[in-house]
């Protein structure tokens, strides 16, 4: 289906000439999924069908205690300082954003009365402003009303450089004003297709102005409310012990009817992932456990305990191999892997193509990740509208050998291929993590058969994933030929994440290895399309651009995607709960309930 044709159809729905249902049916017929079709409509200004939850309880409370287990406990409870998902989840029990992302990447209103759209006047035609209408009668836990002033205050708090808020990235290049007590207007400097970043999701949780206004900027650490949150959420603060416990009790004034169901919530931290899985799946001591970084084999065995089930939510993370486009062995101006150099052998496309053919993704999925990693040929996998259909995943050793032969890489006396004195010998690094070491072994074995020698290196995760400039073993330094790890967009929009191939983002000594482009791959076409996509308001065109942005580095083999990794959680069989790969586990905590 042509883009123009599609746009025509959307216009007909907007004008009311075509029903939503028949639009969705036609989209499904051409191979789009139903949620994706509704997405296209939604972003084009058609009101999103509100999904009616299957929330059964008919009164507030009475559900007993909800016990959840995080094997890394929350360490702080100010959402603007939250460094990891564990902290964001702890905060989300008490604080709420204007809107949340559900599992399909749809926007769900929480503190907003409705999702802004073109119809309700929430979105401007030029893409430069958003007007949020806030829910009336929302109260902070201390009884004070929640108003537009609070929202505006959060913007001021976060953008004060002295606060050094972790969430500041979502509030750049914009202005936030109060229109009336329950309306807020955000004006962007440039047209912003992904307008739902500020005040939405994990970076959007809103803290009360009346308790924080005297503690912004340099004094931010001294606020007593940092440790005793007062929010709008379904549970009120009861107790907090960093790294160990976050406890809450029911908020009888919650702004949604009949919610929440539980009388209290206990979020226990610490320990390890396997025993957390055990406490939910096998013994049933807990109702929910976060981030099951456990081999699927073990999870299946624990599920046999019959108390709980593993739940999987698609997200954007992808485990991939990066190919260094620079030379990691030559030092130029005090740094290796400098863009002033070129990789001696990986600069040959034939070699990169051969390597891509030597990664047996299906075996890696089958024998290592199981349900927790799905083989893919794309760097950008989710939400579905951004997934490319133009790439293939192929494992073929013979074809790789033929390619290398044709390109003149002949086996030497030691069996390793070489050309002009350059050998196909690579250093392949990753963090210490059992599935990764197994993946390394599978790749190494296939490469050996094709005459490529792989030296395996694994670095302790706390070093590998650190921003330590002095340590050459961190992944941004990339002092190796190949490296492997997982990364992904944390929001259902790839805009920020796709910076990872921009020429302007090349990681180097000059920027203290703090930039995004780790492979150092540079491509003018990519840069141009990215710049265009930044301000493209037409969602269909924009999705097509991101598909192109995925295809360019994947087809040029700057990266070899392996598996995409959904969020894996363990939940009790009796618990009705849903998490999301795009938001905190608790994005819908108010709807959680348990069968008696």
């Amino acid at each position: 289906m042509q883009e123009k044709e599609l746009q025509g159809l959307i216009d007909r729905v907007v004008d009311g000439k075509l029903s939503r249902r028949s639009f969705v049916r036609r989209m499904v017929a051409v191979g789009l999924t139903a949620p994706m079709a509704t997405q296209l409509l939604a972003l084009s200004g058609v009101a999103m069908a509100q999904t009616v939850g299957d929330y059964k309880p008919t009164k507030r409370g009475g559900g007993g205690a909800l016990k959840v287990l995080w094997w890394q406990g929350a360490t702080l409870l100010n959402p603007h300082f939250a460094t990891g998902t564990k902290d964001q989840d702890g905060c989300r029990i008490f604080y709420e954003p204007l809107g949340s992302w559900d599992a399909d990447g749809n926007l769900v209103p929480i503190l907003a009365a409705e999702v802004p759209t073109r119809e309700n006047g929430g979105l401007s035609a030029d893409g430069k402003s958003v007007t949020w209408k806030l829910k009336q009668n929302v109260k902070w836990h201390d009884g004070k009303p929640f108003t537009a002033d609070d929202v505006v205050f959060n913007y001021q708090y976060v953008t004060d450089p002295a606060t050094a808020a972790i969430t500041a990235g979502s509030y750049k290049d914009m202005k936030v004003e109060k229109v009336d007590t329950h309306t807020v207007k955000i004006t962007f400097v440039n047209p912003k297709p992904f307008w739902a970043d500020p005040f939405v999701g994990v970076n959007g949780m809103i803290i009360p102005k009346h308790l924080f206004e005297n503690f912004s900027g340099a004094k931010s650490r001294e606020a007593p409310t940092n440790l005793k949150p007062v929010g709008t959420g379904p549970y009120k603060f009861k107790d907090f012990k960093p790294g160990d416990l976050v406890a809450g009790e029911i908020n009888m004034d919650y702004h949604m009817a009949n919610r929440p169901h539980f009388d209290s919530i206990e979020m226990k931290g610490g320990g390890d992932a396997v025993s957390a899985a055990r406490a939910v799946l096998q013994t049933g001591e807990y109702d929910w456990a976060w981030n099951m970084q456990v081999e699927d084999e073990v999870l299946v065995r624990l599920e046999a305990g019959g108390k709980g089930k593993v739940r999987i939510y698609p997200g954007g993370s992808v485990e991939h191999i990066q190919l260094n486009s620079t030379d990691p062995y030559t030092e130029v101006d005090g740094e290796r892997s400098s863009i002033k150099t070129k990789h001696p052998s990986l600069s040959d496309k034939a070699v990169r193509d051969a390597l891509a053919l030597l990664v047996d993704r299906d075996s890696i999925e089958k024998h290592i990740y199981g349900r927790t990693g799905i083989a893919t040929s794309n760097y950008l996998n989710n939400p579905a509208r951004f997934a490319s259909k133009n790439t293939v995943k192929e494992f073929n050793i013979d074809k790789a050998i033929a390619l290398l032969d044709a390109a003149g890489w002949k086996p030497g006396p030691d069996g390793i291929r070489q050309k002009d004195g350059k050998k196909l010998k690579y250093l392949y690094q990753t963090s210490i993590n059992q599935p990764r070491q197994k993946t390394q072994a599978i790749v190494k074995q296939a490469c050996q058969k094709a005459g490529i020698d792989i030296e395996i290196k694994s670095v302790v995760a706390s070093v590998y994933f650190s921003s330590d400039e002095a340590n050459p073993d961190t992944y941004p330094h990339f002092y190796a030929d190949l490296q492997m790890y997982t990364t992904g967009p944390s929001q259902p929009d790839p805009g920020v994440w796709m910076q990872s191939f921009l020429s302007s983002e090349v990681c180097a000594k000059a920027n203290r290895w703090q930039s995004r482009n780790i492979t150092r791959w540079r491509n003018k076409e990519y840069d141009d399309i990215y710049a265009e996509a930044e301000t493209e308001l037409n969602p269909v065109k924009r999705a097509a651009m991101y598909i192109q942005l995925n295809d360019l580095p994947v087809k040029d083999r700057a990266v070899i995607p392996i598996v995409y990794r959904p969020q894996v959680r363990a939940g009790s069989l009796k618990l009705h709960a849903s998490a999301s790969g795009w938001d905190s586990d608790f994005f819908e905590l108010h709807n959680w309930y348990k069968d008696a």
Partner: protein
Amino acid sequence: MSRDYLFRRILIAIPSLLGISLVLFTVLALAPGDPFGELVTNPNVPAEIRLALRAKFGLDDPVWIRYVRWLNAMLQGDWGFSFTSRMDVDTLIMQRLPTTVAVIGAAQILAIVVAIPVGVLAATRPYSLFDQIANTLAFVGFSLPTFFTGLLLILVFSIQLDWLPFVYRTDIRASGWQWWWEHIRQSIMPVTVLGLFQGASLVRYVRSSVLDVIKLDYVTTARSKGIGEPKVVTRHVVRNALIPVVTLVALQMPVVFGGAIVTEQIFRIPGIGSLLISSILANDTPVVMGVTFVFACLVVLFNLIADILYGWLDPRITFR
């Protein structure tokens, strides 16, 4: 026991504590990684924020400046604040210290209660069946590391039998007897693991030290005077045999804390041991410094207690 002596002991402790802190700080500073590592992989956090945070928390200054700053604050009673939770380190430690002390204390009491009678009985009947069994069990006991016995107990009592919980909770919503009962139930496994590990090696020491004493002439004299055997053992033998045991108990305190760190991790006990582990993993220097400092103080304190106990057990070696 004079006040002078106590004062002298505390004075001696100061340079050792200073030395410990200096070594620790340097090692931590040299160790790779930084507290904001988690931000590196998050594409939504701009690099400027990471750099601003490093600057704000003074992580870019040279090691020696950071040490002097830390020491200076510490001398004024300011323990600093945690990088990851931004909470004051002393509050953080005080939240967790009671749990650790309770668990370690209970374990130590269990160890002593088991080890002394078993050791004494085994020594009074050397090479009897009881002695053989006690010895074998003691060997098994101190050869098995706590993380292994901990997992074993969980497998048997939590998973197979479903009698005991394996997640330690601090916020038990009950009062009176119910509260005590819940706390005892969840402490059984960790205390057993730690206590028996300690007790196993103690049994060996008690046995050999009683064996040494029981052959001495004054014991024979006591017996010939017609004092009953129980009285001979408790009054004359055990009291003298305990002196080396007390030294051992005191000197083993660091080992107990080490074992407690592992046990706390396995059973999710929110003590200072698990705080130490998570802080080390997060490169949270102020907390690591604070916790190790507390450990160092506790070890020094227990050595002092041992010295005081000597005086009580044997007035001849009272320090002046």
